[in-house]
């Protein structure tokens, strides 16, 4: 009787093992890179009904965040401005710009096709329903908009700048000094080491982080890490 398997079959099991192994490793790696919020959510940049440019309004016009997001300091929910907020200015400024058609549609009774319905902005930052993030708790304690939303003042169209994953939240809750600022600087997008001196005589304090550490002590900032902080 003869061999049932050809000679070359001797190395086959080894080859298969090697291939399968490397394939599995590859999948794992790919998953960890692509299937995490870091890649999935960061950079999400939907087109809006009105191509509203934060760059123009913040950098050039110099509006404060709170002019439109008026309740960010008092409410957990940072509100999207109502049509009339825009209308306050734009019934005079840039009135004829075709980009503003949707605004006219909702605000300007004289406009053909006026329906008074609010503008439907597309949500960019969406936290899951079981997460209760509270804006007022952060901006009133020295965490800037910039820390979570990035350089909005440079954005023509808003995109998501940070992963906003639980791990990302925890990083900051464990080391708040990286984000802490004097309350006056919370809405200042150009805050940097230069501004530190304004707030301290202490020569040891040079960088924003140094100041952050100082403020952490002074403000008694002690962020919680337990579940109920955000989930209830």
């Amino acid at each position: 009787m003869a061999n049932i398997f050809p000679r070359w079959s001797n190395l086959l099991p080894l080859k298969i093992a090697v291939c399968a192994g490397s394939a599995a490793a590859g999948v794992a790696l790919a998953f960890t890179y692509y299937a995490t919020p870091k890649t999935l959510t960061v950079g999400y940049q939907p087109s809006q009904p009105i191509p509203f440019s934060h760059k123009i309004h913040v950098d050039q016009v110099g509006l404060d965040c709170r002019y439109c997001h008026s309740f960010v300091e008092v409410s957990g929910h940072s509100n999207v401005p109502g049509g009339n907020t825009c209308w306050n200015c734009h019934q005079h400024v840039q009135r004829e710009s075709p980009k503003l058609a949707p605004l006219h549609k909702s605000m300007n009774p004289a406009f053909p096709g006026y329906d008074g319905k609010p503008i439907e902005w597309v949500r960019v930052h969406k936290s899951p329903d079981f997460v209760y993030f509270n804006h007022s708790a952060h901006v009133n304690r020295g965490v800037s908009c910039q820390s979570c939303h990035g350089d909005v003042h440079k954005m023509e169209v808003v995109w998501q700048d940070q992963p906003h994953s639980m791990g990302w939240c925890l990083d900051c809750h464990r080391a708040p000094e990286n984000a802490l600022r004097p309350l006056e600087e919370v809405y200042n997008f150009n805050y940097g080491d230069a501004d530190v001196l304004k707030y301290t005589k202490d020569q040891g304090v040079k960088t924003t982080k140094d100041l952050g550490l100082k403020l952490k002590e002074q403000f008694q900032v002690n962020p919680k890490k337990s579940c109920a902080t955000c989930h209830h």
Partner: protein
Amino acid sequence: MSKRIWHHPEVPADETTVSWRSAGQLEDTPAFREWLDREFPQGAAEMADESDAETSRRSFLKLMGASTALAGFGTAACRRPESYIVPYTKAPEWIIPGKATYYASSMPRATGATPLVVTTFEGRPTKLAPNKLHPDAEGTDAFAQASVLDLYSPSRSRQILKSGKPAKRAELDAAIAAIATDKSAKIGFLFGADDSPTRKRLAKDISAKFPAAKFYQYEALTGEAPVVLGDGVKLVADFAKADRILALDCDFAGTDPQGPVTPFFDRRKPEGKAYDHKPDAAKMNRLYAVEAAFSLTGGMADHRLRVAASQVALVAARIARELAVPGIVESPEITDSKQVAWIKAMAADLKSNAGKSMVLAGSRQSPAVHQIALAINLALENIGEGKALLALQTEVTGLGSLAALKKDIESGGIDTLFLLTPSNPIYDAPADLDFAGLLAKVKTSIHLSDRTNATAFASTWHIPAAHYLESWSDARSARGTYTVVQPMILPLYPNCVSELEILSALLSDDGKLLDGEGDKEAPSPAYDQVRKTFAALGGEDLSAWKKLLRDGFLADSSYPLATPVASPLAAGSFAAAPVKDALEVIFATDASVYDGRWIDNAWLQEAPDPISKLTWDNAALIAPKTAKELGIYDLIIEPEPVSTILGVESKYADVGPDGEGENRKQPMIQVTVNGRTLEIPVLVSFGQAENTLIIPLGYGQAFDKDDELGRKPANQSHVGLVGINRGFNAYPLRGSATTYFTTGATVELTDKRYSVALVQEHSAMYGRALAREVSTIESDDEKGDFKAQLANVKKQGNDSHAPPNVYLYKPLGSAKWNPGKDGKAQPHLNDPLHQWAMAIDLSACMGCNSCLVACQAENNIPIVGKEQVAKGREMHWIRMDRYFAAQKDNTFDPDNPALVPQPVACVHCESAPCETVCPVNATVHTEDGLNAMAYNRCIGTRYCANNCPYKARRFNFFDYNKRNPLIKHNLYKGPLGEKTVGDADHLQKNPNVTVRMRGVMEKCTYCVQRLKDSVIRQKRGQKQEALVAGKASTEMEVTTKTLRIPVDSVKTACQEACPADAITFGNLLDGDKSALVRSKHIERNYDLLNYIGTRPRTSYLARVKNPNPDMPDARFIGKATIHMV
């Protein structure tokens, strides 16, 4: 970082409605969609994603947040008549998306309006709380708490009916106009028993405009008391002033209020309401109760006498004679010597406290009892200014009774009848009145109700009523304080009309019926009427009006005093005692459906009856002894059954003869009385008078094919899924002469059985010192006096000989990896600002369901339906345990056990057994001492619940929020089952609490959403301080004071609702300034199951009974636990 540009797809116009359409969506009517569109325009749009619509009400919030933010700026999004509403002081801001706004309003009721603070989110009322500023402030009972659900009830009436068929608004308008313009119309108005000044005023105007108009009043279960006291006069109790209280079949703490009850409970606490002085028995009040079956009041009583309802008059008369009260005719002597002894001693106590005592007669008791009670009170000088009882002249006068109405109709005095009463006369009027026949005689009958009940279909017209949270009105509270009723939101459905709007329509020249929205943007006519009424009382100027809206009431506007006189007692006021073959049937007011008007309220239906613990149905209650005599129950489960195992005598709990859990099936009896019969399941109730049968009213309104007993389908359109096939209707047994009780009933056992859903099936503590009780008098069984007993509270039961708990290791973190500021290891509970804790005072807790329902409303707790409750799957975070403790050696009345309620929710153990067993860290402790539950991490191993000694955890066995549990077997159909998504119920959900999905564990959170909110609000103070001081934030010092919330400033939902102030909650770090900390330090404070060493944050305060040493039963009082080793 790659930027993927995402082009948002256009949402087609019709999409908005499509997203709301899903299988079995009760609310998917054009009406609802229209409402949604006009109320939340952006809402409809963002609902494009089905999953949003289904799973999370928060997305709903988010979108509404946005849309009402627009509203805040005055675009046409929110239709609330905003310019006329001033926010309640608590919330200085205008509507802010994501933040609750609070308004003062009130709930009109027969016994006086309940002053309320209404929580609204973007215009949705979601939660009610008592208005503590109000002079008649007290808690909110289960009915008030649950009333918000009615606003969103899917079965709510929303269609105009003409003789039972849907009709056009125009037709109705025509009909009304016709009446309004015919000055000679013979109109009759049937009002409820509540007192509304504006309605009173309009009634006057109406009788001016229509000379032939007549006014009547009817509510099924408000009694004949006024007849005795004089027209519109009522006695109101001021419990703060009462040292001795005698309740003659009067459940003043429960379904039969006699005035604000909170002060009564304040005086049940020997350390005072704020726990701020040494325990002092003298400061406590003493309650004597004479009643047939346990009521909440009877459960609180220090001395309780069991007599049939028909015998109360006799007892009252005997007491009167004891006190030598003039004008009481000789009454038959009481044969039972023990009762006599009881009465004598009690009477003596009343006498010695003359002027500081009160005798309260149940409002449904016979006039005789009221006459005697009045006579006694007058004799003891208990009535009058500064006394415990106030006789007040209400404005509810000149109203005819149902009998009068009958006469007028038969004499043709009435062509048009407006049925404005909250009751349902066709269903609940005394049988012998034959109200249906009566109504048929009336040419036009117009019925206003938020339910399409029997009367709705029997009348010519039915008009859907606006909920009190949707309409303008006013009311009088218990002592007559003028209280406003203001709308939180426009009527959810078009054509919903309020009582005042109908009246004003009749008064207007053209008789045009204007509803809540009024003409374009114009306020409702009711608004103008209320303002007019108020102007007369509080002046014209706007500031007064605004103050009214802000505070909810007008100060110093209570009723004037009246001087009632005792009237001679009619002969034949005394009935013979019931006997075995001529039982007495007592038609009880039901704690869940009242007179039947709440039949469609799922929260109330699922809330267990405080005494019998029965949900979703009613059943006849009978005393064990009687049951035995009648042979309808061969084995009774006694309060503490004793058996012998292996020669050792021991208590043990076998399953009763009628099963346990889902297998429980009660035998049915056939009751025959007044020539009518009723088949109803029977339950044994302890402490009930012999030879009586208690049958709660209000059930059995409609049946369909799914009925368990196969009763023939009827009235299916009268109720919704909640009320269908519920219980048994006892109204037909009632005659006008026997509205409360009737005698001569015979009972026979049928071979049928009916499954009942009881949430508690074992009434004894089985020798475990769980709910602890002491008495203020010397105890003769070596337990010593009051002082000694207090000192012993912590040592009762197993704790008397359990060794102290020793902890081998310290609850510390790692010094190397997670060091504290000082570089040392941090303790686990390391929040320096707040450490939350709670104390529940059993001395005040009476076991009503107020906290339970409040919790349900606050925390989005689903209902699960009768079958699931029977299995033992109810979701209430608070389990209201109720224990009976019988004295083995009770020689006075062995069948009269003590009743001790004990609400048990998660006690937030510092050393929580549930945490260590969770494999995925879904339940862990927070720095401020909460036992947190992360729903989104939970995979549902249910190990935590097994390891929870208090069994305080609840598991979502099904998708209760998504699948309608009320449809038979629906839960078991899984994906094929009918959904409740888009159902208006979802609008009630609290946006700050996650709606739990199937397969996760949940439990009490100490209302963590409220804690977080208050703590965060406090943090904002830091910035304010900086601004005020005009310094840079970095120059300001931030202290504990800045960041710690004010003492006792945050309340949990249960605490807020509790009418007895039995729950204190607060921050352990507040020191003695906090009532909580004080309550933790008093001797009565003990930990439930301390033996295990879980170190719970919720502790209990032992119940104190204040017996009268001279009473024959004194030595058996206050020993529910004390007699145990």
